[in-house]
């Protein structure tokens, strides 16, 4: 940790000086993220799309192929399960099957028939989990999720504008959108499932990233008061460096906790943990490199604009 305080003394780490580079990198990442989202799309879970998700427990571990050959056999031909997604759950004898019949979730009768057929060729099978969702409900849930995320962002901008200033709020939300798009993009790329816990993960990332950003803002606010001689860039940069140890230590402790969750928390929490891990990394980066950079760019642009207005005589100097 000492190395960081030394860096600060010599001012070797000039993040704000390279802000355009960081902004460009992030812009590229966001564009890649958006393109990936547009091209590959998100693998939405049944709770959003409707349909059924069943988890079956076998006596031995079976492959997706074995299950698939039963699902597409003549006995089950009327359900047309060719498109069912079959996914063995690693480290268990469980298999998850996601399917729908004519846009509807499977009925109890259909599930029983599937289990009977699987038992015939693959040994005893039991149903350990099922989720049946009508498309209507899925749509409602998706709308609610979008509403929750939007409202959080609005609430954050409002609060930050109140406590700091509007520019800070907008810059913070830009950083949040950046984090969200990167996580969504990676999930689209990997084809990981996006379900309700994922929404919780996204909101946690938003909460975490804003937390980080505010700690840096707080420092900038303080330095603006006491170091009037320095430029905006200098103040922003030294504020980032002064809070760097804290930023790193906090992300490390949180990462330690989430990594434990990812590796030991079981299959159902893995995607959730992955989203948080990605979000933590993106969030820490954006809090340090993006949110202050946007604020600096905007503030400088604003000053310049006002200066020009002053020189062209449209405004009195004391307003500037």
């Amino acid at each position: 940790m000492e190395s960081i305080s030394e860096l600060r003394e010599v001012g070797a780490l000039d993040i704000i000086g390279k802000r355009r580079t960081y902004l460009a990198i992030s812009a590229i990442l966001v564009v890649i993220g958006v393109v990936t989202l547009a091209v590959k799309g998100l693998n939405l879970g049944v709770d959003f799309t409707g349909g059924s998700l069943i988890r079956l427990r076998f006596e031995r571990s079976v492959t997706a192929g074995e299950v698939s050959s039963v699902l597409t056999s003549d006995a089950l031909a009327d359900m047309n399960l060719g498109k069912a997604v079959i996914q063995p759950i690693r480290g268990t004898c469980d298999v998850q099957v996601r399917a729908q019949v004519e846009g509807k979730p499977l009925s109890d009768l259909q599930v029983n028939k599937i289990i009977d057929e699987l038992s015939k060729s693959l040994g005893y099978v039991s149903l350990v989990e099922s989720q049946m969702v009508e498309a209507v409900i899925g749509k409602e849930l998706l709308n609610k999720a979008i509403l929750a995320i939007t409202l959080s962002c609005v609430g954050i901008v409002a609060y930050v504008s109140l406590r700091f200033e509007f520019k800070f709020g907008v810059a913070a939300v830009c950083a949040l959108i950046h984090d969200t798009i990167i996580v969504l993009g990676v999930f689209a790329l990997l084809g990981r499932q996006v379900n309700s816990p994922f929404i919780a993960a996204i909101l946690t990332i938003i909460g975490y990233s804003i937390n980080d950003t505010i700690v840096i803002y707080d420092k900038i606010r303080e330095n603006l008061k006491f170091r009037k001689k320095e430029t905006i860039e200098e103040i922003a940069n030294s504020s980032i460096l002064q809070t760097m140890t804290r930023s790193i230590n906090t992300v490390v402790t949180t990462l330690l906790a989430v990594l434990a969750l990812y590796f030991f928390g079981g299959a159902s929490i893995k995607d959730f943990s992955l989203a948080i891990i990605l979000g933590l990394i993106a969030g820490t980066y954006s809090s340090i490199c993006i949110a202050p950079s946007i604020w600096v760019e905007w503030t400088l642009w604003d000053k310049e604009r006002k200066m020009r207005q002053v020189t062209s005589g449209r405004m009195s100097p004391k307003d500037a």
Partner: protein
Amino acid sequence: MRPGIIWRFVGVAIIVVVCALAIWKLPINLGLDLRGGTRLVLEAKDTETVKADDDAVNRAKEVIERRVNQLGVAEPVIYRQGARRIIVELAGVKDPHRAREIVGRTAQLEFRDERGNVIMTGNDLKTAVAGYDQYSRPAVNFELSPEGARKFEKATLENIGRRIAIYLDEELLSAPVVQNVIKDKGQITGLGSMEKAKDLSMMLRAGALPVPLEVLHSEVLEPTLGQEAVDQSKVAALIGASLVVMFMLFVYKIPGLVADIALAIYAMIVVAALVSLKAVLTLPGIAGLILSVGMAVDANVIIFERIKEELRSGKRIRAAIEAGFSRAFGCILDSNITTLITAGALYAFGSGAVRGFAVTLGLGILASMFTAVVVTKLILVAIVDRNPEKYGKYFGA
């Protein structure tokens, strides 16, 4: 030690004892995903004869309550949502897939003559018990209400030698030939298995739903799977917390140890608050808890870094601690309130498991602010008071 500090220690000790008692005495309310169970979102549908109005939905809810009572679920949650929806949450039910079937089924029993006229319905039954018929096949034996007995006596008299068909939700169960007049007792066969006979008798006792209910969303989880999730979460929590504790100790030494103590108290407060509020602990909720352990040390880190700065600017250790805490407070408050905003949004729009996550996240934030600002400060001040020169250097000044 100054008396003020002693009293504050007493205060913290009382909080710890109360929390420990709450955790020890009160049960933890595990969600569906941790102990198995059934969650259903049902929507009432109109039929040709009955409209799914407020009254019909209320009656349907009552029927479901009666059915659930027969299933023997400890704390069923059944409530209406909007005009036509009924939410049923049965955590800890032994056979959740069966529960789903029993709750959602209309169970409209009809006796019809050969021309298709309805003679009587399940409403005319007084009791129904599962049993066996003369060939030892599963059956439901029923007794009729006085009104039903009159109808059935008349119908059997008119239909001797002909068949009376018994339908359950438009599915033909059996169609026995009437041998002689039946007054008040009868038997339904054609059920397939004893379990089905038991389920049907249970549904008949609770009554049919006044309107059919469509299952819009069902989540069913076997208890074994819930237990696995609990076990895995425990391991993850233990490892995650140990890593965080070791990290703090390694990086911050004595203050790190103080933060670790604060972290332990933090965990106790959150769990105690969860059980006292009877909040439901879900899998994402546990994840939120583990995550918040990582985030909880954040307030401590902010304070410690702040104290270091104050020391560097030339303050003595005691003054640096005071200034560090008061300066860090605004920062901690601002950064946590924004996280509370997202937790609030999650709570308002999430359902089930996600809501559980929002609750633990929100409680976690409040508790971490308290422990960092009160507990950490108290212990630090007490330690430094003993020997300011000796302990001051641990802050890395």
